[in-house]
């Protein structure tokens, strides 16, 4: 039986931009004047949608704009969106840290929020004292904490340090202790904001496991915000996508993530001709790079082990013997190390003779075995050899591709991020019609 645990009706939240200062008092008085005459707040009319990149004129924005959704018992709802889409504001309103400007929220049950781990822990107090303090701040009674104390200490793995002041803890231990307390909260509705992005890989796994356990066995409702699509994918059975404070999608997790990832492509400047960081004699110039998934949607992120099609447009400024062209495409990690290289002469690929001055290289990879992380694409075109004098055009960062850790092996476990990967693919050339 599913039961509505949380009902959000037309919630909006207005923020004032700039400093709170002299202007605030006059606006407050003006508001009050409108209010006693029974008129609508004058500033809610001029308030703009929240777009942080464009400068607004009114000084007020809607951080959350008319948001509606319901969450049922036992559901794990993921909330995704770009930075500044309003995710955290929404969670703050739900956890009563700040109030909405308009709308109504109905909550059935106790609500516990985890917008940060270890809130209110005091450096001078011991680990044990802090468990009590943090637990009580999160809404547990002293008796509840006492009954779970041993489990909490065990989960955090800090037995040795429970009587040591918190300030002597390593940052990892602090986070573990904070999360351990939160993990034993037992509200009907749990709100979690990106707190899993802390601690080492082992602890993250433990934390995700605990969250799954909470929602599955406890039948509790969880609202989860994260930028890590891998954990969203493995945890949530439903997702909402926020964009400029509005809900733009509400439905199954996979579609939601896909929609979100597609939206992000707009942020990459695909015009490679404007890229100044290049080498080579310039007879050939790379002009554009695009990534596609198997559905032919343009993307900037793919799942580990997923399909990827890379298209690189080029133009010729002088005659180049395409038959002698060697193309190299490299996927580099954060440390600029080549993780995967596709080099046409190594692969035995010879491009057909062509008289066209424009064309597109297409790299199709059915399964890209890259571990999770951000990769920079390096592209290099050479004519007749691999020495620097043969370089036609070289771009060290032609674009970036985010690879999202996923349950690649189908084992229920996600691949840990790492260095080495291996992949297989084919490069073909498509001529442009003049």
């Amino acid at each position, binding site marked *: *039986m599913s*039961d509505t645990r949380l009902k959000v009706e037309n919630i909006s939240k207005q*923020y*004032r931009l700039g400093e*709170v200062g002299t202007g*605030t*008092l006059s606006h407050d008085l003006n508001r009050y004047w409108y209010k006693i005459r029974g008129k609508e707040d004058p500033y809610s009319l001029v308030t703009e949608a929240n777009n942080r990149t464009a400068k607004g004129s009114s000084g007020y924005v809607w951080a959350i704009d008319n948001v509606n959704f319901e969450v049922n*018992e036992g559901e794990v709802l993921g909330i995704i969106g770009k930075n500044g889409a309003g995710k955290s504001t929404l969670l*703050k*309103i*739900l*956890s*009563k*840290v*700040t*109030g*909405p*400007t*308009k*709308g*109504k*929220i*109905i*909550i*059935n*049950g*106790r*609500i516990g*929020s985890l*917008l*940060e781990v270890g*809130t*209110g822990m*005091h450096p*001078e*107090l011991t680990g044990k*004292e802090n468990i*009590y*303090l943090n637990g*009580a*701040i*999160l*809404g547990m*009674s*002293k008796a509840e904490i006492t009954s779970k104390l041993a489990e909490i200490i065990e989960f955090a793995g800090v037995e040795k340090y429970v009587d040591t*002041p918190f300030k002597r803890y390593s940052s990892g231990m602090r986070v573990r202790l904070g999360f351990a307390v939160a993990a034993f909260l037992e509200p*009907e509705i749990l709100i979690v904001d990106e707190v899993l992005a802390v601690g080492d890989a082992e602890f993250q796994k433990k934390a995700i496991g605990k969250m799954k356990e909470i929602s599955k066995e*406890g*039948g*509790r409702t969880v609202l989860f915000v994260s930028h890590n699509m891998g954990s969203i994918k493995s945890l949530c059975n439903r997702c909402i996508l926020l964009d400029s404070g509005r809900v733009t999608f509400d439905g199954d997790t996979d579609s939601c993530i896909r929609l979100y990832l597609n939206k992000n492509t707009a942020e990459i400047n695909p015009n490679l001709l404007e890229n100044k960081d290049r080498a080579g004699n310039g007879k050939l110039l790379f002009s554009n790079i695009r990534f596609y998934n198997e559905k032919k949607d343009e993307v900037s992120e793919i799942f580990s082990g997923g399909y990827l099609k890379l298209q690189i447009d080029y133009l010729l400024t002088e005659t180049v013997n395409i038959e002698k062209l060697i193309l190299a495409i490299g996927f580099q990690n954060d440390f600029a190390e080549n993780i995967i290289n596709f080099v046409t002469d190594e692969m035995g690929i010879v491009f057909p003779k062509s008289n066209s001055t424009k064309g597109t290289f297409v790299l199709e990879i059915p399964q890209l075995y890259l571990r999770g992380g951000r990769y920079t694409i390096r592209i290099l075109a050479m004519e007749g050899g691999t020495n620097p004098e043969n370089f036609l055009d070289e771009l060290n960062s032609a674009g970036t591709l985010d690879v999202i850790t996923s349950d690649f092996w189908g084992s229920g476990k996600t691949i840990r991020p790492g260095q080495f990967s291996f992949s297989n693919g084919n490069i073909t050339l498509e001529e442009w019609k003049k």
Partner: protein
Amino acid sequence: MAEIHSTSIITPKKSLFSLNLKDVFRSKDLLFLFVKRDFVAVYKQTILGPLWFFIEPALTTIVFTVIFGTIAGISTGNTPPILFYLAGLTCWNYFADSFKKTSNTFIENQHIFGKVYFPRLITPLSIVISSLIKFGIQFLLFLSFYFYFYLFTDSGLEPNMTLLLIPYLIILIGLLGLGFGLIISSITTKYRDMRFLIQFGIQLWMYATPIIYPLNGIEGNLRTLVLINPVTSIVEAFKYGFFGEGEFNILYLAYSSLFTLIILLFGVVIFNKTEQNFMDTV
């Protein structure tokens, strides 16, 4: 299906008097943990620990005795100056602590308030209670001096039935400080100006209270002014109970009680109104 403990509704405007005192009561464990934190954390890694609670008023009393008693020559009546100042200071410190520390509630705790919800009133309440513990320790210091003077010297101290009012007076001082603190803390979330005023305001207020002088030592308009001050009659009643000297007037005390009640109510209401949205302006 899990048992549902409660249904709550979040809306933009809440009624002025929906004070959620039930929630405050439910969070009593948190209240005591906060008190413990405030009390324990201050003197961790000190050698003398809570002894510092004695040292602070003792030194101030000595300074007052020298400056106001000996140099300025302000009369303390038949009461030994040390005892007179100590009594006044003990009361005043409790009021000043309750007022000053609660007036910073929102600003000092914004990192916690910004991350998790609990009835915000818990924080100022915990401050008043931990200040009460500090008061208790200083009160012990006062009592030990008092008994010394009472038993071993011929100082003319006349303890009387007014002593029965002491617990009431102490509660009144704490609540008065709390009420003022709640109001100031609510204003400071938006306008920080008040913080500067409070810094020296409390200092000046002390001189408008009969701490270093007896109430019957002043006359005229000045006396009216001092009597308007709601702390005056409480401190005077406190001293009268122990020393049998000074002015104890049940009417003055009734005025202070009513004043405290109004300030406290007003403070709780305005605090409650502020707590919902203060994170946006603090």
